[in-house]
């Protein structure tokens, strides 16, 4: 009972000044409540306006269309088998896998290429440094979609037709339909399945289409140019004293890079590189310009056939948000590894 007595005395005394406007805490609560209410009101207005217009124009809404038959074919599928009688949901899954395939491969190869070019630009060899600089300046300053058109035109116009395909090694064919190569059989495992020219095109074996090749080349070279600059900046950020101390210890240039400079440089390199990976993933949506069936391209077709633009765009947004959060989550974990090591050293 004494405790309650003291508590009530304390609160009784304080209640006289609890809600005064002069208190910063009170002001901040009121301002934040007003902002939340304004945002909520804005969101409610937009949503109710959209719903009202959809109903007035008699446009269908809801996600039920995902279970309807798609009716269109898709040029290439990754791991999934798809035909025109499947649902829209399966078509979207095919698009998603296509996006992930080209984005993942572009990220990996552009990292390798970007690090090499970044290091080349810092090289003591004048020619190598200048070539790397020219590469970075040219590729960074031309819009990506123009580069994609360039690669696609180059591949389709300069390679021959399937009947005159180039064949450097038996079983491998290079034509304007793509790069056909033997794979371990889908029909007979452990035996190589060779591509054979039958009628119009090659059947059997694996095929890398010109659309995929152009996407992959364009994305890789473009992202590599940005990563090269980030790597160069990261290495330049390491204090000059570290280099001199390492050389004075008798370490070779390669050892200096690997054990002293890069671990410190990575702390500066990793956060901007995360942004470049996210950019690369989102840039893969330019595939619609050259005919690669990625997620955005398939959702666009779906929107056009069903008329449900809002549902389609929100699917695209949700998927890209998920992919981007996954990439940045992984990169943040990777970054923390370096931060911890650095502080312990």
């Amino acid at each position, binding site marked *: 009972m004494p405790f309650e007595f003291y508590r009530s005395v304390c609160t009784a005394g304080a209640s006289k000044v609890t809600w005064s406007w002069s208190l910063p805490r009170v002001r901040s609560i009121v301002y934040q409540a007003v902002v939340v209410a304004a945002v909520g009101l804005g969101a409610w207005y937009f949503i109710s306006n959209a719903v009202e217009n959809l109903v007035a124009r008699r446009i*269908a809404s809801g996600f039920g269309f995902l279970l309807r038959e798609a009716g269109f074919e898709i040029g290439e599928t990754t791991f999934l088998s798809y035909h025109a009688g499947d649902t829209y949901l399966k078509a979207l899954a095919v698009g998603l896998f296509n996006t992930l395939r080209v984005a993942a491969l572009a990220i990996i190869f552009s990292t390798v290429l970007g690090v090499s070019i970044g290091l080349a630009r810092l090289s003591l060899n004048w020619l190598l440094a200048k070539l790397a600089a020219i590469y970075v300046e040219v590729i960074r300053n031309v819009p990506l979609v123009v580069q994609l058109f360039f690669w696609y035109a180059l591949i389709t116009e300069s390679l021959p037709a399937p009947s005159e395909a180039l064949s450097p090694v038996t079983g491998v064919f290079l034509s304007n339909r793509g790069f056909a190569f033997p794979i371990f059989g889908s029909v007979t495992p452990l035996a190589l399945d060779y591509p054979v020219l039958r009628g*119009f095109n090659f059947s059997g074996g694996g095929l890398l289409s010109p659309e995929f090749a152009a996407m992959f080349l364009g994305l890789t070279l473009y992202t590599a140019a940005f990563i090269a600059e980030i790597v160069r900046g990261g290495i330049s950020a390491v204090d000059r004293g570290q280099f001199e101390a390492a050389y004075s210890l008798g370490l070779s240039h390669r050892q200096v890079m690997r054990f002293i400079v890069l671990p410190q440089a990575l702390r500066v390199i990793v956060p901007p590189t995360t942004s470049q990976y996210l950019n690369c993933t989102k840039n893969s949506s330019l595939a619609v*310009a050259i*005919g690669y069936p990625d997620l955005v391209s398939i959702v*666009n077709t779906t*929107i056009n056939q069903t008329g449900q633009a809002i549902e389609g765009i929100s699917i695209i947004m949700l998927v890209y948000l998920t992919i981007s959060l996954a990439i940045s989550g992984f990169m943040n974990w990777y970054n923390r590894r370096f931060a911890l090591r650095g502080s312990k050293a």
Partner: protein
Amino acid sequence: MLVRTTLWMEALVLLLVVAEGAHAGATADSALKKGFLQCGVNTGLAGFSQPDSNGEWRGIDVDLCRAVAAALFGDARKIRFTPLTAQQRFTALQSGEVDILSRNTTWTLTRDTSLGLNFVGINFYDGQGFMVTKKRNVKSAKQLDGAAVCVQPGTTTELNLADYFRANNMKFKPVVIEKLEEVLNAYFAGRCDVYTTDVSGLVAARISRAANPADHVILPEVISKEPFGPVVRHGDDQWFDVVRWTLFAMIEAEEIAASTSFGIVADSCTRRRYADRPRTF
């Protein structure tokens, strides 16, 4: 006489618009207030909507929009054109970016019902066909098993193509490119064996883009019905009436032009012929 008759019919349509002024539709109102008609057309399809070498839009779809502008303002030049790809066209109309879509759009059940659009009528009857290079030696569409087919996305062409190949137990690889210029580049570069779209589009592509038109053959099979017509939004009956009767006026005018230009002497004989026509207004 043709011009006078056409203008007279347009004036009648205008009268309809003015007479209904009591509850004027939203689209007509906003167009009159803006002072011009916003018309959605193709990015460049010869014969339907294509800018000529002076930048003037020419084609049958363009003519229809000019007629609607003439009906609204009495001046066919009070018009702005928005080039739209197949993927953008319905969203542009639904959202109000254009007042009317006159873009060789096929009239289908889905488009007429679940997209919130109304098809006003038909100004061109077409069908879907296939074009291949002559040296392929293909005589019929049923020999196209395994071909790579260039097609634009978001069209009835894409769906009909899949249905036709499924129905005939054939396989194909679609090369799906959005822009018309790019898809034609891909076909003429040899990226795909076959180009498929409406037969009118095949003819237009062959005339305007082929290095040697005789090298390309349009196969005899026409695999679908593609009736083209102008499209407006749901919920504006007055605007629907304006566009529909403009279309009918143009059809009437063309019939009269055809009958006078086929050597029938323009005298009391013709006037009597005209007077005998059933009244449509």
